[in-house]
């Protein structure tokens, strides 16, 4: 078989302030016609550099040292600039990582899709529009007509990414390069996009070079894969071989770091469930925020209260890990912020049986016992404060602790989170992402809190780093008996560690359950099922097919009268779902499920 794309000994250097850095080191890859090939690696592996080097589009400080890139035998580095313009977008298209920034914000979506077609075809006027519409529909945007006239900011992330794919394939390219196209998207949106790509590959016969850090998605979409580390390809093979029988130690470590509920090898950490009185109990928590609504010439007094979350009841036992999962817009972070007093709320929060009503009642003792770790350490650690002060501050605030005591405790916690004491006088911008999150963990633990709220704390990290952070949290928990409220969108991650999981959708808890092991037996909420089937771990992804749901979250301004999930539910019963709002009722062994489907029917579902 003649290859479509061949890359041989490609070596690329970057000139940086600290000297020359080798970004790609003797990379050899090939992609056959109509084949889907994944490039997998963590940050810094050079996988994106490879994508853009293939497109002959290196950053200004980048330099090709050696190697060739051939498309159907033509050496791309020998093309003239006009030839390159003819080739890019026509024979070889790319879709990049962040749909939010890939569109020019000041031009309409239609114009930008048409532009891609116009530069490579002789189409204009109606014919051009017809072609653009055809491909917008082909990528699953049924409302293509109105979408053409919209501006990028009026589209959701998933819609934007689809429109970019439409622009990329409308010229009939032979190769489609996808650079982490789902990373910025929610799991269900990402799953739908992956399904679309598989479809397009089949129907258009286009070859796909798929750059990703996600081994589950790799297993879904690709025939073959290359694993990269620090600019070099360390392993190549079919995805089956890479997932089931990885040869290179790095690939093995990578696979072992991916959370996989089925691969419970005993190394997982699950704390023992706590006693009878819960450490934290939340009753009927409600958070609203004002939202401006257009009316009147001056918009005075026109804001309306919109509910972010409501009817929230949950418990965290002593020493337990409780998962709160959901996608963006589910309200899970709103709850976290209410629990640490950053959002005003209605309802009751009890710590060790002491009920507190409203934000003002969260006193100093409560604030000492409940700490929060934020998602992005870059944002939660002040860049102008040294690490020693960052970590010691909560202790100092407590009062009655001498400076030497504080220093001693800071040194102790630094050791516990495995950070070198040399870092104490540094600023956080001098640290890696994983180190920064360890600083944030150290700050949360310095007062020996009873409950630590972790808000998506590993979502910006590589899987191997994520694994080490999870292990650290586990050892701190077993040492101090701390409880965790672990907020995440990654159901695979939380299944392997949590004692209790609450699933959220559109501001409501739709399911609460107690776990003894990673399996999720029926009955369960249809949304929990969707979440599980949207993000299959690599092994499952080889065989199982992903479940996709259509549509978007309902509007906050006109919340649904019936079940919040009705508009997207794959197990929808009928119009009753739109009219009747179900209650969160205990079903079987579960704490509660908010669904109109009969318990008996839910019980018949297979274990997830």
């Amino acid at each position, binding site marked *: 078989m003649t290859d479509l794309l061949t890359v041989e000994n490609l070596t690329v250097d970057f000139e940086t302030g600290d000297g020359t850095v080798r970004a790609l080191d003797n990379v050899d890859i090939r992609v056959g016609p109509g084949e889907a090939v994944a490039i997998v690696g963590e940050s810094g592996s050079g996988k994106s550099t490879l994508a853009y080097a293939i497109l002959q589009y290196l950053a200004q400080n980048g330099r090709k040292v050696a190697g060739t890139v051939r498309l159907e035998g033509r050496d791309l580095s020998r093309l003239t600039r006009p030839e390159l313009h*003819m080739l890019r977008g026509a024979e070889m298209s*790319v879709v990049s990582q962040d749909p939010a*920034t890939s569109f*020019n914000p*000041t*031009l309409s979506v239609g114009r930008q899709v048409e532009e891609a077609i116009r530069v490579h075809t002789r189409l204009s006027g109606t014919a051009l529009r017809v072609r653009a519409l055809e491909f917008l529909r082909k990528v699953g945007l049924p409302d293509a007509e109105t979408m053409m006239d919209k501006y990028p900011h009026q589209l959701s992330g998933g819609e934007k990414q689809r429109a970019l794919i439409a622009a990329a394939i409308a010229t009939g390219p032979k190769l489609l390069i996808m650079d982490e196209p789902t990373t910025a998207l929610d799991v269900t949106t990402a799953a739908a996009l992956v399904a679309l790509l598989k479809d397009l590959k089949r129907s258009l016969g286009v070859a796909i070079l798929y750059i990703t850090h996600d081994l589950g998605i790799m297993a879904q979409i690709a025939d073959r894969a290359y694993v990269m580390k620090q600019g070099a390809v360390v392993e190549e093979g079919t995805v089956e071989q890479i997932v089931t029988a990885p040869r290179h130690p790095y690939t093995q470590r990578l696979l072992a770091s991916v959370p996989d509920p089925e691969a419970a090898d005993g190394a997982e950490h699950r704390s023992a469930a706590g006693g009878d009185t819960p450490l934290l109990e939340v009753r009927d928590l409600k958070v609203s925020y004002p939202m401006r609504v257009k009316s009147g*010439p001056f918009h005075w007094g026109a804001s309306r209260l919109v509910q972010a979350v409501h009817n929230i009841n949950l418990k965290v036992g002593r020493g337990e890990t409780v998962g709160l999962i959901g996608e963006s817009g589910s309200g899970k972070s709103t709850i976290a912020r209410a629990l640490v007093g950053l959002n005003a709320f209605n309802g009751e929060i009890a710590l060790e049986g002491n009920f507190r009503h409203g934000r003002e009642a969260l006193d100093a003792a409560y604030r000492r016992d409940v700490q929060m770790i934020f998602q992005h350490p870059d944002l939660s650690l002040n860049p102008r404060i040294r690490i020693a002060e960052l970590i010691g501050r909560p202790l100092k605030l407590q009062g009655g602790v001498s400076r030497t005591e504080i220093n001693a405790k800071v040194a102790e916690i630094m050791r516990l989170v495995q950070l070198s004491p040399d870092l104490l006088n540094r600023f956080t911008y001098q640290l890696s992402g994983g180190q920064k999150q360890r600083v944030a963990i150290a700050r949360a633990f310095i007062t020996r809190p009873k409950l630590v709220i972790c808000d998506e704390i590993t979502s910006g990290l590589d899987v191997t780093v994520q694994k080490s952070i999870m292990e650290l949290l586990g050892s701190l928990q077993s040492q101090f008996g701390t409880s965790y409220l672990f907020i995440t969108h990654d159901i695979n991650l939380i299944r392997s560690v949590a004692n209790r999981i609450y699933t959220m959708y559109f501001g409501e808890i739709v399911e609460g359950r107690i776990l003894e092991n990673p399996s999720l037996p029926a009955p369960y909420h249809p949304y929990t099922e969707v979440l599980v089937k949207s993000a299959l771990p690599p092994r499952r992804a080889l065989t199982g097919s992903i479940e996709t749901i259509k549509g978007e979250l309902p509007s906050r301004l006109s919340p649904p009268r019936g079940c919040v999930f009705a508009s997207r539910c794959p197990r929808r019963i009928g119009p009753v779902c739109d009219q009747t709002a179900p209650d969160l009722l205990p079903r079987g062994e579960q704490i509660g499920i908010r669904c109109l489907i009969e318990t008996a029917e839910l019980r018949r579902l297979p274990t997830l």
Partner: protein
Amino acid sequence: MSANYLVRRFFSTLLVIILSSVIVFAITNVLPGDAASMVLGEHATPQDLIAVRERLGLDQNVVLRYVEWLGGALTGNFGESVAMQRPVWDVLSVAISRSLILAFSALLIVICIAIPLGVLAAARKGTAVDLVVSLFSYLGIALPEFVTASLFLTFLAGPSLGIFPAGGYASFSGDGVVDALRHLALPALSLTFILMAHISRLVRSEMIDALASDYVRTAVLKGLSRRQVLFKHALRNSLLPAVTIIALDIGYLLGGVLVVEEVFAYPGVGRLMIFAINNRDLPLIQSTAAVIAAGYAFANFGADIIYAWLDPRVQYD
């Protein structure tokens, strides 16, 4: 852009104008130092002071006087100039039209030259062209208008060359287009230096940011040529911040007008202001300053409208 937004911005512009007239009034009336002795100088006799106080109404309450002034100003009655013994508005209205011609000529020159220069420097980043533009703009930013104006006067209006008149004003209708332009040229050029430097630098840095953006990368990888990318994608987005900055620069421009009109004896608002200050003509000072502030506020109002019209993201609701 909604009509609501327009109305709202219009009213906040009015508020800014009124507040700035309050500030002007406060500075000239409330600050330590008596307005009457400011008018008459340090060697005034007590009788003169009393007379002036009475004539200017300084014996009345300050707030009352402001309200009276504002009421008059809204109906076009700005009071009477002490030094010229003529209604302020008669003098001011003539001066405004001349200054507008000057300011717009300068702005036009700036926009026509600075934007292309900035684009050129960004497109040729790191080359000799970029360096020359940068050097020029650093020099431009660092030379006050009175220095450039004086140098122009010395070298281009001197008797040896005599291409341009040393000063004064000629009207388009009365004195002919050529004469009017000759009188306009040097003052307008002197005003452009600082703005040109500032705006070309801004456009350059915005263009460089835009050229490094994801959407430009997307456009390049769609197969668009460099020219198409530069003009269809990058330039459009770089001009958005330029609109705001140009409007803010109107403040510099109006400040420059004061000096440049003085150097070239160009009889506009700036020269009137300096005349009023030198003669401590309180009614003329207050009204002229208020008019200048209003000019600035309206320029920014205009810029906001242009911005909203250019940028679909701005919804203003």
